[in-house]
């Protein structure tokens, strides 16, 4: 069992839901990333998602793309991100999962990547460009290392396929709320509640919903059907101009924002 399995077991026993913030590693630098993770956990996030910057993210909208571009412009390396995590994860009262392109994992070699992630205290992986058919080897490696390999189901996923994805997913199932890329939306698709409801009937695996979520209304609407809600672009946008402002102000603003969502759970 991974730290994420333990977390959701505990949350369910307590009848609580998770607000899962996403931030991009090294935007604008790793020192800030460490500080923002601490702030998010202090505000009550029981799980954080860290985006590993990638040069060609297909599933990401302009806000997260730009954050990756900013981080990579400073030539941040994976080894440095893991070094920061090694120092930070033992101090956090919440597990961290990484969102990472398979291009990066493949380049390092899946066994090496999993070993390095584990050594850095990472609890799980979300690999947005690795469909279930291609994930067999990584699933085995993650299982052996007690890391969760969190798979995604989307509104375009046929139901028989969704069942296969649930079987292979661990930690939680990531339900993608919209057909499209990451980014804040005013309205979420009306079929969302039914689709997640159907998935719930198929499995006990915790389900977290992401893509498009940014407003307290979204949180109020979705929390009853989900174990957790993932918020990315709305946070990354608030970090985008960190270079031009006192860091303390940015941390405060991000913290207040996440707090407002947690209050809506």
């Amino acid at each position, binding site marked *: 069992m991974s730290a994420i399995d333990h977390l959701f077991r505990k949350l369910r026993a307590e009848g609580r839901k998770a607000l899962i913030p996403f931030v991009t590693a090294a935007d604008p630098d790793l020192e800030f990333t460490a500080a923002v993770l601490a702030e998010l956990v202090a505000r009550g996030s029981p799980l954080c998602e860290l985006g590993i910057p*990638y*040069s*060609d*993210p*297909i*599933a*990401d*909208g302009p806000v997260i*793309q730009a954050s990756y*571009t900013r981080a*990579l412009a400073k030539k941040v*390396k*994976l080894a440095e991100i893991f070094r920061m995590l090694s120092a930070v994860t033992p101090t956090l009262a919440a597990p961290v999962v990484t969102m990472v*392109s*398979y*291009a*990066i*994992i*493949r*380049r*390092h070699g899946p066994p090496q990547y999993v070993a390095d992630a584990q050594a850095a205290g990472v609890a799980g992986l979300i690999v*947005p*460009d*690795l*469909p*279930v*058919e*291609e994930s067999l080897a990584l699933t085995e490696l993650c299982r052996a290392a007690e890391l969760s390999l969190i*798979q*995604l*189901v*989307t*509104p*375009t*996923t*046929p139901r028989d*396929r969704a069942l296969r*994805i649930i079987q292979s997913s661990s930690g939680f199932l990531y339900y*993608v709320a*919209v*057909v*499209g*890329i990451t980014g804040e939306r005013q309205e979420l698709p009306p079929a969302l509640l039914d689709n997640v409801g159907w998935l719930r009937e198929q499995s006990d695996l915790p389900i977290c919903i992401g893509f498009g979520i940014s407003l307290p209304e979204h949180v109020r609407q979705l929390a009853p059907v989900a174990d957790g809600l993932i918020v990315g672009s709305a946070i990354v946008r608030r970090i985008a101009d960190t270079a031009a402002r006192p860091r303390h102000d940015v941390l405060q603003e991000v913290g207040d924002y996440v707090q407002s969502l947690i209050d809506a759970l």
Partner: protein
Amino acid sequence: MAPPTQLPDSAGRFGHFGGRYVPETLTAALDQLVEQYQQAQADAKFAQQLQTLLRDFVGRPSPLYFAERLTQQCGGAKIYLKREDLNHTGAHKINNTLGQALLTLRMGKSRVIAETGAGQHGVATATACARFGLPCVVYMGAEDVRRQAPNVFNMKLMGAEVRPVESGSRTLRDAINEAMRDWMASVDTTHYIIGSVVGPHPFPMIVRDFQSVIGRETLQQCQTELGRLPDVVVACVGGGSNAAGMFYPLIDHAEIELVGVEAGGRSDAAGDHAAPLCHGEPGILHGSYSYVMQDEDGQTSDVHSISAGLDYPGVGPEHSYWKETGRVQYTECGDADALRAFDTLAKTEGILAAIETCHAVHNAMQIASRRSADQVVVVCLSGRGDKDAAEVARLRGEKG
């Protein structure tokens, strides 16, 4: 191992290259494409319809032309040009876009998106869409919008919307990223007509198959017009579609030497060229595992070529397979040599070839000059060079 002509396997693999590394959102559409393509292949009416279009709309077969004065100048093997530049819209790209436009209709999709580098694929997609009344959006890197301006206007004339892409290096790679992102949101109603043998399965297979008309015709023309097979066949490699279309039908003829020419750019230094098969390593880009220019973390590197159509850090997975099996030899040609070949072909043969194509022409001239007069070298003349005339003039400091 399966014979090379039966690849890819059902997972889209050529050896260990290829596959499908894309967000889950796109998987159902790719599965649908596999299924509809299989049905289309089994449907005689589909083949008939495509063949008629290729004959009456594109003007196929394209000639296999003896380049007499170029041959004399090189003083060696006979050089023949497979004249894809004479196709409607001036390049091989139309072979693929008509096939995929028919698939679009078959799948009941009502909108088309595409990426383009040189603009030839954009023009060919806009043309196919105009022919079938499909709305069309073409993503094109802002740098390429500048250096291939004539093609931008042509796309618009045919009713396509051209969206300049300002992210990253503002070239072909970024245009593919944006097209994929559009497709992420529009996949229910839209087909993505990808322009080369790249991307997730089944694109490398489908594009290769539609382009294979080049190699099939070449085989037949060699047999009927020359009474023999060629000794060497040369094609330029960006994503690799004209080369794959030329090579695939020849793969089982082991006696024919196949040569793919990548963009050597300014130098061998990282960032100065766009030659992943010559200088890169296997990795993932745009949904498949293949040779690519990337750093030790898997981040795609910036590349350079004078030619927008070759200015791409990746290459189709089947080429990686052919490299690894040794069936095709991959080399490169630099910017300056390509420009010289542009000039030579214009002055000796009266043909303005695309600057992409000129990479193959240069290396074919070198090969021919080292061979005896009884040998035959065929070059895939993948496209015409009108689009490049103004940019070539600018690079020389002349007025276009």
